[in-house]
């Protein structure tokens, strides 16, 4: 088969656990459909790419505060509904285990395994004070033009 593969592009703007899950489930499904898949992480969606451990980097005061207030990694993200100050995610993770659903960190790992292109928006990284060292390995860094290049010949395009 020499024909061009179909393409799915997703903008992950949200930093909510449930919304990120939806984005990554669609991405994994699309990869199984043999699409070339790109997830472009911007604003709060960047937190899904954060490493869980503390990475020592030089930062200004505001950036440090941002770093402290935002969830460090996918597993720490809250729910868009019924978060109950952190109780919600604990409950839903329990339910997910019962139903054998993959957790968000597992979905991200699966996406990387399936060669889903994970992109971090460099402009919003600057705004939120996130540095490359703090984000997962093997991801790409780009801006709106690179995203549009993938999206313009895309077949599925979502903003979550």
């Amino acid at each position, binding site marked *: 088969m020499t024909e061009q593969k179909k393409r799915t592009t997703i903008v992950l703007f949200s930093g909510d656990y449930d919304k990120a899950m939806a984005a990554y489930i669609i991405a*994994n499904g699309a990869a199984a459909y043999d699409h070339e898949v790109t997830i472009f992480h911007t604003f709060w969606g960047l937190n899904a790419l954060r490493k869980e451990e503390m990475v020592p980097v030089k930062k200004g005061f505001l950036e440090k505060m941002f770093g402290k207030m935002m969830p460090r990694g996918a597993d720490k993200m809250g729910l868009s509904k019924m978060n109950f100050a952190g109780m919600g995610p604990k409950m839903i993770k329990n339910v997910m285990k019962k139903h054998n*659903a993959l957790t968000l960190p597992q979905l991200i790992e699966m996406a990387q395994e399936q060669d889903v292109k994970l992109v971090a928006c460099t402009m919003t990284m600057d705004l939120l004070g996130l540095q490359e060292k703090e984000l997962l390995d093997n991801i790409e860094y780009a801006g709106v033009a690179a995203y549009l290049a993938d999206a313009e010949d895309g077949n599925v395009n979502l903003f979550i």
Partner: protein
Amino acid sequence: MKIDQVLDAKGLACPMPIVKTKKAMDTLTTGQVLEVQTTDKGAKSDLTAWAKSTGHELIDFKEEGSIFIFYIQKG
């Protein structure tokens, strides 16, 4: 019907049955048949649509209790 590979996807939730099916299918050659066993209720629509869209053929489907069994021939 000759079955070349059996994939046990029982108990797995969306999107895993489809992800595993794709991976298993990648190891087969054209004309070979994959049997997929799953318990995910969405799988009937999912695998039917997936097979159609990716150029494979769903040649048979049956339900045994709560288990759905698909036979997909690689296209």
